[in-house]
Every structure is written in structure tokens, then in C-alpha cells.
């Protein structure tokens, strides 16, 4: 890489060899301080009974061994049962949201691959949900989902006459799941669009020309050339979407306030609530550690399976 280094006298080379570490130092220190140290501390905290009495000096909180884990994993007791329900809700939510985001983003990118009038404008428009600050966008959706003065009920009940005259609660009860999903997809799909659009630009035009000469129509070209070409990007895209959606805190927090209805109680919000509402940081940390383990397992498994799958494809 640095073929020029041969020209340098020895002392300069020495200086040069420590230079990269100096350049990395600020980034490294900050990442360690803000991410890794707290993460290790969180693991330690999960083995302590850390209630509000110990917050000023957490090192005095008594060790409790596996107690926190036994508490949050015992599905026959309220804490464990609530966590399990929140976890399953989050899984279903993530599956649907990532699927829809990917579908909309890919479809839009494929449809907009070919130039047409107004494409640039449409592209900018589609990126607006991505650019809007989360809270501003989600608060607007909260207004739209209001029972008495929201747009959604006005359209459904007053204008289309669906579901009778009684307005639906969207931010309470079971419907809140669908409200949350709608907002999540609205906010998330432009990222998929952005990434797939970027990937499509790297497909050589000759592929399409050759296919067209062979008499392949546009659908066949999409099926045979476009979609296979985004496979490599999809691996990362789906993983990133999965992690973002599964960990999403902002959307339910702004949409529902501090306590989400059961049907939309995503796991991040659930941990936040069990920590800051009850001030029991020990159990909250145990839940966080379990969440981390789950994400690590899924990520490792996913990368293993998709990488092997792709390798086989290419052989």
C-alpha cells in the first residue's frame, strides 16, 4: 500500500508507524468511553440489585447472582411474561416492517431506474421521510391517528363509511400495532430505496442491451438482471433494517408517550419503562443483556447463512 515508505529515513518511518494510532486515538477513546465501557458496566449491573437507593454510588449495590435473569426469564411471573410478550410483539413488528420497507424501497428503485420526466423531483420527495426529524414526523402521525380529530378516522368512518359511526382508537389497544407499523414503514422505506438505487447504478448497461437483443422484455430483464444484481447489497440492507427496527425506541416513544399499549410495546421502550418508571436498573440491565445476546445470535446466524448461500450461488 505505502510503496513510498521506502524513500523515508528510518526515524521518519518510525514516526510514521505510530501516526495511524495517533490519528485513530480520538475516535477510539470516545467509542470506548461512550459505548464499550458502558456496555461492560451494563453486564456487571445486570448481576446486582440496583434500585434507586444505589444510583448515587452504584458500586455499593448488592450482588445478586442470577436473580435478575431468573426474574426476567420466568414467564410465569408478571415481569417475565410482560418481557416475553414485548419480545414477541417486537419480532412480529420487525418482520412486517422490514419486509414492507424492503418491498417498497426495491420496487420504487426498480421503477425509477429508467429515466422519465419528474424523476429527480420524485426522488427528492421520497427522501423527505428520511430527512424529517423523527419526532416531527411521528408527532404528525400521532395527530393523524387521533380518535376524534384525526385524518385516519375521518377518512375511514366519515368519508368511506367503513367500520360504523363509532370512531376507532388507533393509539390505544390492539390497533396501535398497525398504527406503529404504518409509521415505521413510512419512515423506514426511503432508506431501502436509497441503498437499492445506489446499487442499481453499478449494473453495467451492456447487460440490458444484450438482454434486449435477445428479445427479453422489461419484466424479464428486471427478473433476470436487476433483482439478482442487488443481492449483495440486500445482505447488508436487510441486516441494517432489522437492527434499526428491532431496536427502535423513538417511534413508539413519540407516538404513544412513555407507556405504549401492550400491542405496540416494543422491547426498547419496554426496557426503558421498566428501568426509569420503577427505577430498577438491575432488571433493566439484565433485559438489555439478553437483548444484546439475541441480536448477536441473529446477526451471526444471518451472516453465516447468507454468506454461504451467496458463495454457493456463485460457484
Amino acid at each position, binding site marked *: 500500500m505505502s510503496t513510498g515508505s521506502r524513500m523515508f529515513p528510518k526515524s521518519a518511518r518510525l514516526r510514521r508507524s505510530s501516526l495511524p494510532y495517533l490519528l485513530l486515538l480520538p*475516535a477510539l477513546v*470516545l467509542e470506548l468511553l461512550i459505548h464499550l465501557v458502558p456496555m461492560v458496566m451494563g453486564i456487571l449491573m445486570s448481576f446486582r440489585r440496583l434500585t434507586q437507593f444505589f*444510583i448515587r454510588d452504584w458500586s455499593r449495590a448488592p450482588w445478586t447472582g442470577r436473580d435478575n435473569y431468573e426474574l426476567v426469564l420466568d414467564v410465569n411471573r408478571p415481569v417475565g411474561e410482560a418481557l416475553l410478550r414485548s419480545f414477541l410483539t417486537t419480532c412480529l413488528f420487525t418482520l412486517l416492517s422490514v419486509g414492507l420497507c424492503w418491498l417498497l424501497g426495491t420496487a420504487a428503485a426498480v421503477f425509477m431506474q429508467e429515466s422519465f420526466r419528474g424523476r429527480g423531483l420524485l426522488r427528492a420527495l421520497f427522501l423527505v421521510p428520511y430527512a424529517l426529524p423523527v419526532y416531527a414526523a411521528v408527532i404528525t402521525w400521532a*395527530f393523524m391517528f387521533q380518535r376524534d*380529530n384525526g385524518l385516519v378516522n375521518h377518512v375511514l368512518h366519515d368519508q368511506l363509511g367503513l367500520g360504523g359511526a363509532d370512531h376507532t382508537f388507533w393509539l390505544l389497544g390492539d390497533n396501535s400495532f398497525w398504527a406503529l407499523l404504518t409509521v415505521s414503514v413510512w419512515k423506514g422505506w426511503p432508506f431501502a430505496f436509497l441503498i437499492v438505487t445506489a446499487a442499481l447504478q453499478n449494473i453495467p448497461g451492456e447487460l440490458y442491451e444484450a438482454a434486449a437483443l435477445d428479445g427479453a422484455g*422489461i419484466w424479464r430483464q428486471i427478473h433476470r438482471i436487476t433483482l439478482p444484481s442487488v443481492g449483495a447489497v440486500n445482505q447488508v440492507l436487510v441486516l441494517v433494517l432489522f437492527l434499526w427496527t428491532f431496536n427502535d425506541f423513538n417511534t413508539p416513544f413519540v407516538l404513544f408517550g412513555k407507556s405504549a399499549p401492550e400491542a405496540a410495546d416494543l422491547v*426498547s421502550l419496554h426496557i426503558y419503562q421498566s428501568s426509569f418508571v420503577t427505577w430498577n436498573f438491575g432488571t433493566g440491565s439484565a433485559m438489555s443483556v439478553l437483548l444484546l445476546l439475541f441480536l448477536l445470535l441473529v446477526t451471526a446466524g444471518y451472516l453465516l447463512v447468507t454468506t454461504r448461500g451467496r458463495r454457493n450461488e456463485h460457484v
Partner: protein
Amino acid sequence: MSERPGTNPGPRSGRRSSPPAPPPSFRVIRAVFLTLLSGFVLLPVYVMVTSSLKPLQDVTGRFRWIPSGLTLRPYIDIWHTVPLARYFVNSLIVAGAATAASVVIAVFAAYAVSRHRFRGRRLFTVTVLSTQMFPGILFLLPLFLIFVNIGNATGIALYGSRGALILTYLTFSLPFSIWMLIGYFDSVPRDLDEAATVDGCGPIGALLRVVVPAAVPGIVAVAVYAFMTAWGEVLFASVMTNDTTRTLAVGLQGYSTQTDVYWNQIMAASLVVSIPVVAGFLLLQKYLVAGLTAGAVK
């Protein structure tokens, strides 16, 4: 896979120089799909804009597509109902400082990875990037305790201060910024900075005089991304701020905890706080897309 786009891979290139018109069936489906999608995307924007211009009775009663009258009152009232100006200034300080620091630190780190081979190079990239995948809630609790305890031990009030928030936000955008910049720096020909080094610039001189100017689009992209990240963050802002340091992300909820919910003001405030980032994003969109491309297609 390892293809790096050039210094300015704009999002513009079509797939053929002179495409034959696609068949009508394709064009109809495309038109229907894109129209529906535009409607979905625009709906909240329409609600935000029109509701912010409505008198209060329009937003407390049944929803109206067309306002009964237009008024600018919400835009005046938002500054009094909650101390919005203070939140705005706080957000500007926090996001601005986090962005500036993040860009400088990311430039140095990305330069090291892009231009030097050293032990731990790969480990560094993987570690930094993997911090991106962990849920914020995981280090929220410990970080909260760390800041509180440092405050108790040293008297430096980190908890509730803007400084703590700046430090935290900076690390949120750092990994992705470094990643994007590595891509950009790799696309700057190495001969350029080696020539500068031979001409008597040190490695830092080469970075500042040759590499940075050549990678301006990437640096702009990173700055936009860092600013958006800090401007929109809710979780840490809701725990780590107090009345004087509160940012917009939390402050905006002040309109809805009152007995009357001033939806027209909420919408006006949402619009006002969105303008800096949306305007910035749409202006610099080209750079961000190019920067994302450089990173994502890696």
C-alpha cells in the same frame, strides 16, 4: 462488490443512453405504484402544513381537509406556549458541536485506515462499526450512571449538561462517518498525497492540503448525516437533559401534555424544526447519496 465509485457518483445515471420506451403495461403499473407511494409519503406533509395554518377550532373538532380559514397565529404562539427558542438554541449548539467534532475526528480516523497499513486496522473498523448495531437502551442506563457518578466524584456536572449530550451524539454518528469517509478517501488517488509528502508536507499536511479538498463532497455528506442524527435523537435527549438544556426532540412534547392539545401549534413547531434539516438535506442530497453509495456498495 469492491467497486468504489468515483469522486462524484451522482444519483443521476440512467441505465441506457437512449432507452426504447417500455411497454404500456409497465408504464401503467409504474404510474399507479409511484402515484400511490407519493400519496403515502405526502399525506403527513400535507397534514403538517395545512394544520399549522388552521385556527384552533379546526384541529380540535372533526378533521378538515380544507382549513376553514388560514392564520399565522400558530407560528406566533409556538414561541410562547413552550420556550421553543431555548430548545432551538440548545439543539443548534448540541447538533452543531457534535457535527463539527465528529467530522474532524472521522477525517483523521478515516485517513489512518485509508492510507496506512497497521496492526489492528481491521479490528478497529469492525469494532467501531459493530457499536452501531447495539440498541441505545443498552448503554443508556450505564452511561446515565457514569455521568451521575462522575458528577458526584468530581463536581463536574455532566448529567444534564450539553457537553454530555454532545459527547454522546458524536459517538453515534462517528462509526458511519468513518466508514463513509474511508470510501471517499480511497477514491482519492494515492499519488496525489504521496507527491505532496515528497514536496515537504508531512502526512498531516498532505491530508489537509490534498486529501481533504478532494473529498469535500464526502465530508459534506458526513456532516449532514451527523447533524441529522443529533438533531433527531430522542432517547438520550429525554434522559440526559434538564429544563435549561432540553432540546427540541423532548421540548416538542410540551405542547401535548397540556390539558388542551394545541395541534395547530404542534404542527407549526414540527414544521419549523424540520426546516433546517430538510432544507439542508435536499440541498446536499446529492452528496449524501454519493457518500452512502461509496460506503454501501463496498
